[in-house]
């Protein structure tokens, strides 16, 4: 073979050899690519393994802070990059100012603020539900972040709410040592993100469960302590299984140890008092059937020692969907002690009731006695005073006239004493009723001053009155009782003043929208009261200074006590300031309701005809079982020209009215046989003018109740015994004029 022949052959062989060599090296490169691919797969598998290891470890994180650090560390462990950040969102879905934990982050790296700003501009956690991306160097450089590669994943709660971001990446300083993971190469990253999200969400749930468990435990402890402290027995009856749980306290209440009572419904049944059994079973049955909302049963259970214990059972059934009871739970409370106390209380109350009854009986008897005494005294006093007035009308020598006047004053004083005793008796018995009727306060005050003026003038002292300047002042209250108070205090002032003056000042105070306020001040220039006497001034039967001349200043010592009691009943109170020898000052304030504009005050006595005609014409029937009283009335009226017939009881009066023609009747109230009330009712039933005759009560009973009864029976008016001649004639004159 020559060169020309060999050359092509060698050339072909060389070419083939070169090609083989290229294929061998190419094979090495391809093989390396396969190795690289295998390595990447190995790496990814390794990441899943490390994710698993992290999950196991993170379950034991004992705090959220520790968990966050584990997450940040795991980012580096798993993905082998330089920096790991775990960055939480707030409730509004905004990133917090700094990550919860960071790993590998050094001071030379971009600030958290810059990273946060970029993240917030880059991600749309609300819109992009997956929110996983890999950012590469150009984008990161544009954001002025010193990173060459970054993976970002959003951890979400199962409900979709974003919890936090996982960020891992490499800074430019070490970029040469790291391969940038593309999204395809980092499939484990979303898995890790989801795993962290689940763990974090579970932590929150676990924290809630732990907190609830703690709360429950504490609650159970509290309940247990409370039950032990309160000695409340607990029972729990499962109707489906028939089992009954009885607490230690339940058994101890009945003297049993835990092992001495079998926890079965029979245990309770066998202990219920026979008398309570039927009712108890009924109550249970009623509640089970849904007829009662709660089960409550006060019953007795037999104690181990044989006696019975009062137990208050309370419970409630837990019901299924159809309303049938499936569990019945409740408590037992030993109320034996309460029962014993209750019994003792009942006994004490009975004793108290009896005592009160006795006291009331005694008080009633006293009141009846006092009223009766008043009546019984007033009736003969009516005769005495009446006769004295009649005697005064006869021709008497000056001495005789003086003696008659003294006798009349004494009789009147005696009446005042009787009136005071009657009042204090009623006050003490709590039987004083305060009226609430319209009256003109200004008129009342003027009237009182007018009444008291003659007493002041008799002692040659000045009686002054200062009132607000207003036309009238209609208020609601008890005019009679206020008058009584004013007369009492002003009367006292006049009594204890020998020189100088007595002054009544009435001022209006700051009222309210529906009340007038009045302050009353009664000052005198009298003897004054010592400090010692002031302390006891308002006590009954106290007459101020004991060293005063009691003969000179006679009285029962009841007036101020009555006044104080009445003022208190009217909502006011009385105070006194005094110095021995320098006079006294009594003050009280009353807030009286304003009367409605349409209300009008009743006529006062002053409104009655002031002048009584000298001659009167008419026929008057006087009905009274007391002959003296009949005589007094007859003798008072006949001199005026009136014709007077007499009847000694109601029945006779009715009969006379039926037969005769009368213009008015003076009717005693309490009479044997038919009394005045009954007689009036009969008269009112008579036809025609007879039935409309004015009937004026003439009664020795001056209490409100009796007077009310007069009007209730149909009487037209009343006069109290002992009757004043002037008053009698004024009334008669008034009704005659009307008729």
């Amino acid at each position, binding site marked *: 073979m020559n060169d020309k022949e060999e050359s092509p052959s060698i050339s072909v062989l060389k070419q083939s*050899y070169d090609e083989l*060599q*290229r294929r*061998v*090296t*190419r*094979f*090495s*490169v391809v*093989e*390396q690519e396969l*190795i*690289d691919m*295998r*390595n990447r797969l*190995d790496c990814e598998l*390794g990441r899943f393994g490390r994710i698993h290891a992290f999950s196991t470890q993170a379950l034991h994180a004992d705090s959220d802070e520790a968990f966050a650090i584990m997450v940040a*560390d795991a980012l*580096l*462990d798993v993905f*082998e*990059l*330089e920096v*790991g950040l775990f960055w939480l969102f707030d409730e509004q879905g905004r990133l917090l100012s700094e990550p919860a934990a960071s*790993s*590998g982050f050094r001071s030379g790296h971009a600030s958290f603020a810059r990273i946060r700003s970029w993240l917030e501009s880059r991600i749309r956690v609300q819109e992009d539900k997956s929110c996983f991306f890999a950012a590469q160097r150009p984008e990161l450089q544009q954001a002025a972040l010193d990173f060459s590669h970054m993976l970002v994943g959003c951890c979400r709660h199962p409900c979709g709410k974003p919890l936090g971001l996982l960020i891992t990446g490499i800074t430019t300083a*070490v970029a*040469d*040592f*790291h391969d940038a993971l593309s999204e395809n190469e980092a499939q484990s990253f979303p898995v890790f993100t989801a795993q962290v999200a689940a763990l974090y969400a579970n932590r929150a749930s676990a924290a809630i469960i732990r907190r609830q468990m703690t709360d429950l435990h504490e609650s159970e402890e509290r309940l247990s302590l409370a039950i032990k402290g309160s000695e409340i027995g607990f029972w729990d009856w499962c109707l489906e299984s028939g089992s009954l749980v009885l607490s230690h306290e339940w058994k101890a209440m009945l003297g049993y140890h835990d092992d001495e009572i079998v926890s079965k419904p029979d245990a309770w049944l066998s202990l219920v008092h026979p008398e309570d059994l039927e009712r108890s079973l009924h109550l249970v049955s009623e509640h089970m059937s849904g007829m009662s909302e709660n089960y409550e049963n006060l019953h007795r259970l037999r104690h181990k020692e044989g006696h019975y214990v009062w137990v208050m059972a309370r419970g409630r059934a837990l019901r299924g969907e159809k309303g049938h009871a499936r569990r019945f739970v409740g408590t037992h409370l030993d109320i034996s002690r309460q029962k014993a106390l209750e019994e003792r209380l009942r006994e004490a109350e009975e004793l108290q009731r009896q005592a009160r009854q006795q006291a009331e009986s005694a008080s009633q008897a006293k009141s009846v006695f006092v009223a009766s005494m008043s009546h019984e005294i007033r009736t003969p006093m009516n005769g005495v005073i009446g006769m004295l007035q009649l005697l005064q009308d006869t021709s008497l020598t000056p001495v005789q006239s003086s003696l008659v006047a003294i006798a009349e004053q004494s009789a009147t004083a005696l009446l005042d004493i009787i009136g005071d005793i009657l009042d204090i008796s009623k006050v003490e018995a709590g039987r004083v009723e305060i009226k609430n009727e319209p009256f003109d306060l200004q008129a009342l005050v003027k009237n009182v001053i007018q009444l008291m003026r003659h007493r002041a003038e008799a002692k040659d002292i000045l009686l002054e009155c200062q009132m607000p300047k207003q036309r009238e002042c209609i208020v609601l209250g008890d005019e009679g009782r206020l008058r009584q108070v004013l007369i009492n205090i002003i009367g006292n002032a006049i009594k204890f003043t020998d020189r100088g003056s007595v002054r009544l000042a009435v001022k209006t105070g700051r009222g309210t929208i529906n009340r007038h306020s009045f302050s009353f001040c009664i000052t005198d220039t009298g003897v004054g009261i010592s400090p010692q006497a002031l302390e006891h001034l308002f006590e009954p039967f106290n007459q101020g200074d004991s060293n005063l001349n009691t003969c000179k200043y006679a009285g029962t010592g009841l007036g101020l006590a009555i006044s104080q009691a009445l003022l208190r009943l009217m909502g006011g109170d009385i105070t006194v300031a005094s110095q021995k020898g320098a006079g006294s000052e009594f003050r009280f304030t009353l807030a009286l309701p304003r009367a409605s504009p349409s209300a009008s005050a009743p006529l006062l006595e002053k409104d009655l005809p002031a002048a009584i005609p000298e001659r009167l014409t008419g026929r008057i029937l006087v009905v009274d079982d007391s002959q003296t009283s009949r005589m007094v009335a007859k003798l008072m009226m006949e001199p005026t020209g009136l014709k007077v017939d007499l009847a000694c009881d109601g029945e006779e009066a009715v009969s006379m009215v039926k037969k005769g023609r009368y213009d008015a009747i003076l009717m005693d109230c309490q009479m044997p046989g038919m009394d005045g009330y009954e007689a009036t009712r009969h008269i009112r039933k008579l036809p025609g003018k007879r039935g409309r005759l004015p009937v004026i009560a003439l009664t020795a009973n001056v209490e409100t109740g009796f007077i009310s009864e007069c009007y209730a029976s149909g009487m037209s008016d009343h006069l109290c015994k002992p009757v004043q001649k002037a008053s009698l004639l004024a009334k008669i004159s008034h009704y005659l004029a009307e008729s």
Partner: protein
Amino acid sequence: MVNSRRAIQECLEAALGTDKKCDLVMLHASIGHDYQALADEVRRQIPGVRVVGASCCGIVGCEGVSESMKDVALMAVRGPELAVAHVDGIYGHNAFEKAAELARQLKAQQPGITMIQFLASGIDIANDWAIAGIESVFGPEVTIFGATSSDNMRGVVSYQIVDDQVFEHGAWAVGFADSSLEVDTQATHGFLAVGEPMVVTRAEGTRILELNGRPAWQEYTSRLGLDPENATCGDSIPVGALAEELPTRLAEEYGNPHILRVVTKRDADGAMHYATTIREGTRLWLTVRDEERIFADMDRMMAAMVERVGGRKPVAVFHADCLARGRYLLNRVMKEELVGRMQFPLSSSGVVPPWLGMYGFGEFARLGGVNTYHNYTTAIYAIYRR
């Protein structure tokens, strides 16, 4: 472990328990760690302790292998017969002088040093001159074992730790003067040279400027089927082991006719950084990996080592592995199998002796009774009590 300080705490606790007394801590950590923090934490934990360490692409310990970005392994050493020295600014052009200086420091501390663990930056150093520098002080009898530091195969930077300092172009050495100790070293790779060799037509020191008359990087990557413009050392290292022919005598001991070299860096002008000095006219073969041979050679090496020490068990083992033999070559299962095959023969009743290994750029082990620099190998340094 991502937290450097916590990683050190856990490692020290595993190594020393509660008794933190020791004289020297040797540590290897992958590139994701903060090396200063690692060094500081060791010294904080054990005040006054000497610290030496290196960055690497992965670590090997008694527990096995790990090649993440955040690995740490350390060995705590107790004993008075130790010397530690370091130099900074070691490159290809001054490797001899710096290494000699290093050796002098060691000798000044411990004249009776019999073996030296050496570590230098693995990217731009003339490792053969470094060996020569050390031998110039201690003589060729001293056994030099160790590795060169690395990053994670990017060829960007590697770190060396000495006490509280971290260097990028430093070297450290630990001299063992305990005469009761000896070290047995051996390396193996299992690669096959294929095709026609490339001839170094122009070189300067450790830099290959031209291959086959063309710019070295261009020729090299073209032969590898890589794009010269875009390919990096990270791309070329796994597939581009270069093989130099060994003398027949050494080839027999080595189990392979070629010793391998790695290209750790390339310059913009197309020059390639070689791990040792290289002469023009040297023939360099491309290689392919042969998994069966890798395992077989590993078994052969381990058997030879066991045989050499007559069944004794090592008190500690240092281990340097090429980062290209790690996750870039073997999958996790095979890698663990390979580590198992090297640890098992040296174990005692299944207990692996104290073991500190790292994946770096290069390995130092004796070959033919001479201290030699290797690439793409597994090198075992078993310390025995005599």
